[in-house]
């Protein structure tokens, strides 16, 4: 082989603590290396041109670049060597930035380490084989999981882009958290007026198939060819027939069903449509509180239903769809504030969450848009808002900022004044985080125009006195303790990963971070991609996000999907397993362990069983390679010989006698 080695300075990122020239000089002495140099920015246009030129001038057939992590620029340099006329797999990278220059300051040691990593890459490259990808057909359909505003946006954009969309929502209606909000910041426009038309578009779009009260049961396959099974939960109403007239709701005698849409502030009829703008506007029965389901008699809804759509025997239904791409938009949940015992843990009915307060503010809410406190229905005159409940708090394992609580608290303080002009709001905050267009101005208005009293400090305890709640906090700007007697306390609870996200993540092979939010492929450059090809993220499932950011991400994910599905065929990664039939004894161990069913046993012309890899199904994990004792199945680009070469490069066998023999 004729190998060229290029050591990147990365400005001073690498050159600052690695003697890159010395590394290049040492590389010249490595086996098969005929050219080595250092370059300021290997990934830049001149850097890449330099590589191409060197390939041509020195007739290179393999290239090693020592620079940043291959997770960043391996695809870049593979394209570079391809442009230079080489097979893109005749290329290796040594990570001398993230793994060397950025984690140690000792130049001498770093230089030795970088040199060894280059030697390792060269030894691996010497055993590389040119690889050619296979092509396969793409299923032109996309699955969107989650029907909140991000999922709705992604679904609509994909459908407008001409792709078929299957939208799956766990709740009875799409709309997500946004549907529960009264108004939105910083414009104070009506949330359902903004979202409602989009929800209707989803229902009416010919390219969108909507499944609500449904969850993803299982996922198999790979980019371009996923098979998804969806569980549609029994709703005990035939939605083909239901017209959403609501007659059943009026007559249902069991009216104590929990009402999650109203954040459990009130109860709902057992057969229910969660809110007037629900999409689909269809009724469903809660079997837990249904007299018919529990005691076997009643059936009043069935009797009065004008279209006879009640079906008490309905079962869960499994639907299977083939899709080429998946958008995950499962949103978030609220922090469970009961982890703060000092806020009463539910003993005080007038301590509520911000989302409950939204329902009190909303005209479609349980109080018809009049602020009435839960304990006695009185209109509160003094309302205390406490921010950062479950945000920026290590003691409850939520050290991150939830991002939008400052804004919605300001909005709620404004709306409180709007609803009750003689009220006074107090907002306990730690810092006001309002970086966004017209955001900070909005919080200023809450203070200046609407007279909300902002107090910088946390609240240590809430306790009842008479029919009020004493809120004891700090005003660190005044440098002391403050107390205020409140009629209502609203906790600006933080954001956490949606319950169930972990289970879905396992099914989709999308990794959650330590707090349960899904990890994007690259924090800056691939914000909506995941490390599983064909699976994209939108909205707060990736981290706390407000509405504009969620919508933007929904559109971004849709753009990625459309760019993928516009192709009729995709190339499969050729870094897959390959069988040497002569070495295979047909024991089937590889077949047994392959998680993807990518290996099958076929008979050779003598009738002997032999393993065979389905290249488009193989994901390249290499479990099979380790399973096969005779090494008959090898993962291309990570063969035994390549990894052994790296081991030997790092640990050259040394002669040393330790024991008298």
């Amino acid at each position, binding site marked *: 082989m004729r190998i060229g080695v290029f050591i990147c300075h990365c400005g001073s990122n690498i050159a600052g603590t690695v003697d890159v020239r010395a590394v290049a000089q040492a590389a010249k002495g490595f086996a098969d290396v005929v050219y080595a140099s250092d370059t300021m920015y290997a990934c830049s246009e001149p850097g890449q041109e330099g590589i191409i030129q060197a390939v041509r001038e020195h007739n290179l057939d393999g290239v090693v670049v020592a620079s940043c992590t291959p997770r960043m620029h391996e695809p870049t340099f593979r394209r570079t060597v391809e442009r230079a006329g080489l097979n893109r797999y005749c290329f290796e990278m040594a990570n001398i930035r993230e793994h060397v220059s950025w984690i140690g300051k000792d130049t001498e040691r770093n230089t030795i380490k970088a040199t060894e990593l280059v030697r390792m890459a060269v030894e691996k490259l010497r055993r590389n084989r040119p690889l050619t990808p296979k092509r396969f057909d793409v299923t032109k359909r996309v699955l969107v999981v989650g029907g909140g505003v991000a999922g709705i946006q992604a679904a609509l954009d994909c459908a407008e882009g001409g792709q078929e969309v299957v939208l799956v929502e766990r709740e009875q209606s799409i709309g997500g958290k946004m549907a529960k909000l009264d108004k939105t910041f910083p414009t104070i426009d009506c949330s359902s007026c903004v979202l409602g038309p989009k929800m209707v578009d989803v229902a009416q779009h010919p390219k969108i198939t909507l499944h609500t009260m449904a969850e993803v049961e299982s996922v198999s396959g790979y980019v371009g060819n996923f098979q998804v099974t969806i569980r549609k939960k029994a709703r005990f109403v035939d939605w083909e027939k239901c017209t959403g007239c609501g007659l059943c709701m009026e007559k249902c005698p069991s009216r104590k069903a929990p009402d999650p849409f109203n954040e459990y502030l009130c109860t709902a009829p057992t057969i229910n449509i969660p809110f007037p703008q629900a999409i689909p506007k269809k009724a469903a029965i809660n079997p837990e509180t249904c007299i018919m389901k529990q005691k076997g008699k009643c059936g009043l809804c069935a009797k009065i239903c004008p279209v006879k759509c009640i079906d008490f025997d309905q079962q869960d239904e499994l639907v299977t769809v083939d899709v080429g791409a998946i958008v995950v938009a499962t949103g978030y949940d609220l922090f469970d504030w009961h982890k703060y*015992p*000092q806020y*009463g*843990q539910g*003993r005080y009915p007038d301590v509520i969450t911000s989302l409950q307060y939204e329902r009190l503010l909303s005209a479609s809410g349980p109080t018809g848009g009049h602020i009435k406190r839960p304990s006695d229905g009185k209109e509160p005159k003094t309302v205390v808002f406490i921010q950062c409940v479950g945000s920026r708090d290590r003691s409850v394992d939520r050290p991150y900022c939830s991002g939008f609580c400052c804004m919605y608290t300001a909005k709620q303080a404004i709306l409180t004044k709007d609803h009750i002009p003689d009220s006074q709001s107090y907002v306990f905050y730690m810092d006001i985080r309002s970086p966004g267009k017209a955001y900070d101005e909005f919080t200023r208005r809450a203070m200046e125009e609407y007279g909300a009293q902002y107090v910088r400090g946390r609240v240590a305890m809430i*306790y*009842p*006195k008479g029919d009020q709640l004493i809120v004891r906090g700090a005003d660190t700007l005044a440098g002391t303790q403050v107390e205020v007697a409140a009629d209502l306390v609203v906790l600006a609870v933080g954001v956490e990963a949606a319950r169930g996200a972990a289970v879905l993540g396992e099914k989709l092979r999308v990794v959650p971070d330590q707090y349960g939010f899904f990890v994007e492929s690259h924090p800056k450059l691939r914000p909506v991609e995941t490390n599983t090809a064909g699976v994209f993220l939108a909205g707060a499932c990736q981290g706390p996000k407000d509405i504009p950011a969620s919508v933007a991400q929904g559109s971004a994910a849709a753009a990625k999907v459309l760019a993928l599905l516009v192709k009729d065929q995709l190339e499969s990664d050729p870094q897959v397993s390959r069988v040497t039939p002569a070495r295979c004894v047909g024991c089937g161990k590889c077949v047994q362990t392959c998680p993807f069913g990518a290996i099958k046993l076929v008979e050779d012309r003598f009738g002997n069983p032999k393993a065979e890899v389905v290249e488009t199904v193989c994901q390249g994990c290499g479990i099979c390679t380790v399973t096969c004792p005779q090494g008959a199945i090898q993962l291309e680009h990570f063969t035994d010989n390549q990894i052994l070469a790296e081991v030997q490069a790092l640990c050259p066998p040394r002669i040393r006698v330790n024991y008298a023999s």
Partner: protein
Amino acid sequence: MPKVAYYPGCSGQGTSLEYERSTRAVCQAVGLELVDVPDWSCCGSSPAHMVNHVLSAALSARNLDLAHSLGMEVVATPCPSCLTNLRNAAVEMEDEGFRSKVNALLDRPYTGAVDPQSVLQVLVEQVGVDEVARRVTKPLTGLRVACYYGCIMNRPPERMRFDDHENPMAMDRLMEAIGLEVAPFPLKVECCGASFGVPRGDIVMRLSGKLLDAARGLGVDAMVTACPLCQMNLDLRQRQINAALHERFRIPVFYYTQLLGLALDVPRQELGLDRLCVDPRLALGKIKAPAPVQ
């Protein structure tokens, strides 16, 4: 029959003698054997840990060592201040470096791992509320009380590992078990002013005054405590508080063991009800069962 080592604490020899004696009587009545730590000495209380943590731990460790020599795994004390000191010493001495510094002050190094607990914890966890209820012969119905736990019995929670640290319920449950009506006292763990009574009486006036005020707001007949210092601040100093705040509080402050003793019908002389400064007879008169009025 459960059995623990017992550390009475200095105040039990003086200001809170009635707490100490009623504790012994109640434990005997519910079948909890207390084995006295022989020749125990002062744990150092707050003054010691205000001076130095090693000194404080050493004063406690001498007693832990004596309890260890009894072969006991748990040493129980009625006093939260003693509990805090003993427990801090026990936990911090898990660190080898700290342990050796402490042992350097002692005649005999402490090598045991005795777990200090409050008598309240032992009663709730080893005897059980149900068992206490089962043994009640004279339920105290008709009396409404507020249970006040004091600031350090459950805090910090990582250290004390007993009951809820903002809304403890152990005493509430015991008092309910003997027939009392227990009001939801919101300031269960607020500080009463601790040992500032002597050097800075004004602090105790204000803090204990707040507690009495909250209790009065709930319309209770009496307060119940588990701490000698709290009891002294609320009871003995109630007159001082009234004077300082221009108030007219008249709320008797019982040790929970005194009320347990009444319900379990232990001999009256063990309960020392006559040692309370705010006269409890009016409150006790409300008890509907044959009233144990003196």
